[in-house]
């Protein structure tokens, strides 16, 4: 059973004056248990729309989706999920502690466990000192932390997070990454949307890129990284051997002591052979690959055209 199973999901928003927005077009997506999935896409791509459909906040125009085998929209589908909305807002007259307790009670947590988990999560997200203050007085990042805390309080099997890093300082971001990695270690599934490719690369097993409501790419991070290798940067020392023999390769940099060549994957063996033959000393080899960012940009560009 998949943690999330989306098939043929469509969502059309009807605006005033008969304007229609196709926010999702025939989306198919499966998240397996224990997987950390990064959901990438430019602004207005349909990430939040997908997530709102999953949480039963809006009804899909067509298609079906299930969470842990339960059809979305049902109460049962939400029992094993921790959900963080985009730019969350919580009853601001409550304190963080009260809100967490409220969420825990809604998930029918036993009292002793609830108290323990409340304290743990508050400490984990560094909300301990502010826990008694009403959330009305919280900063944006603090509210975001409360949002994260309320997804974790009941220790669900699946996390659905809409932009979990938004509004957080670098320490907070690092903390979230750490938390997600920890969840992965404990076999939990995480589905999160983001714009920040760097985060994805560090924590995700798989990524999906959605552009204009369509899933344009879906692959494991490993594959993307491997496919992204364009060549190597090879550094040689000057003043030894015949550098002229390497004229066929592009020089990317040179100074008095070193020359750097760009060597495509296909030409690497030839380069090494030539260098060996002409006594050129290779001092450093670095793989040059497209990072996820450019991978992402490329797909977006393709999707937009």
């Amino acid at each position, binding site marked *: 059973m998949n943690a999330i199973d989306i098939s043929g999901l469509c969502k059309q928003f009807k605006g005033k004056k008969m304007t229609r927005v196709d926010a999702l077009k025939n989306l198919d997506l499966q998240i397996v248990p224990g997987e950390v999935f990064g959901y990438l896409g430019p602004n207005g791509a349909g990430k939040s729309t997908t997530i*709102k459909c999953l949480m*039963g*906040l*809006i009804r899909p125009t067509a298609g079906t989706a299930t969470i842990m085998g339960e059809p979305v929209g049902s109460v049962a589908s*939400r029992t094993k*999920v921790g959900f963080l909305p985009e730019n969350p807002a919580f009853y601001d007259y409550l304190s963080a502690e009260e809100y967490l307790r409220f969420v825990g*009670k*809604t998930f029918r947590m036993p009292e002793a466990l609830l108290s323990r988990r409340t304290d743990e999560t508050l400490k984990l997200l560094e909300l301990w000192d502010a826990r008694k203050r009403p959330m009305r007085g919280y900063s944006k990042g603090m509210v975001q932390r409360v949002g994260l805390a309320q997804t974790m309080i009941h220790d669900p099997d699946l996390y659905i997070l809409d932009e979990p890093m938004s509004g957080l300082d670098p320490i907070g971001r690092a903390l979230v990454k750490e938390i997600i990695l920890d969840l992965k270690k404990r076999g939990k599934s995480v589905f999160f949307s983001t714009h920040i490719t760097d985060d994805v690369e560090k924590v995700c097993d798989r990524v999906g890129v959605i552009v204009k409501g369509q899933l344009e790419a879906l692959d494991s991070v490993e594959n993307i990284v491997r496919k992204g290798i364009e060549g190597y940067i090879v550094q040689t020392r000057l003043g030894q051997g015949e550098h002229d023999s390497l004229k066929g390769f592009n020089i990317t940099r040179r100074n008095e002591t070193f020359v750097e060549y760009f060597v495509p994957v296909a030409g690497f063996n030839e380069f090494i052979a030539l260098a060996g033959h002409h006594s050129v000393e290779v001092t450093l080899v670095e793989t040059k690959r497209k990072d996820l960012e450019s991978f992402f940009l490329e797909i977006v560009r393709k999707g937009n055209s």
Partner: protein
Amino acid sequence: MLNIMAISLKGIFRDRIFQGIMGLAVLFLFIPSAASLSMRQVTELSITLSLSLISFIMLLLAVFLGATSIWKDIERRYTYSILSLPLSRTAYLLGRFLGIALFMLLTALFLGGVAMLAIKVASVLYPPARPVLWIAVLASILYGTLKYILLVAVSMLLATVSTSFFLPVFGTICTYLAGSITQQVYDYLHTPAAVKAISPIMKQAALFFYYLLPNLSAFDLKVNAIYALPLNASGLLMTALYFIVYTSVLLAAGAILLGRREMK
């Protein structure tokens, strides 16, 4: 559901609404002296003033608490976090409703207590011709509360479909005004003068509204309380049943509409 109810109640108290009510309750202190202006019915006037003041406060509460609760949750995007919990929308609506209803009951209890004190003072200072019928005073306060709780259900129903604050607020006020007079209109329609003057279509339309709108005049027992007129037990029972059935219909309709509503 109880969870939501508790949170709602907490929210109302945290908004200092009860403090506001306690402030207004100071007005009860002036009731005995204001009522002493009456020539022949000081106690009766103090009951009138007390019940009217309670009614007025409860009306304000019903309109604003009922109209703002769901509307504010949607407007401030609290619904994203609340409705994504394992909680049906029906339970959410009921929880919100019960929270407000409970608050109204507590308020009625508090104001009723203060009012009874004021009435007692007036009746000791200026003994009435007929002794105060306390049970009628209590019944009047209780049924008044039921009436305003029903109005809360009306405003919540309107809030489930509305994207703005105005429909629930003004819709509830209009329902209150219309609901208070439907019985009079109905009675008028059955007078010989009206039978002649009013076209059958108009009459049908009026009858339609008579059956559609809540009949709020049934809940008005002020006259019994003020003039110590005996209560009609079966009438009270009927009115209580009417309250339960009508409120259930409103809440069910609200639940259906909220269930269909998209939290965009």
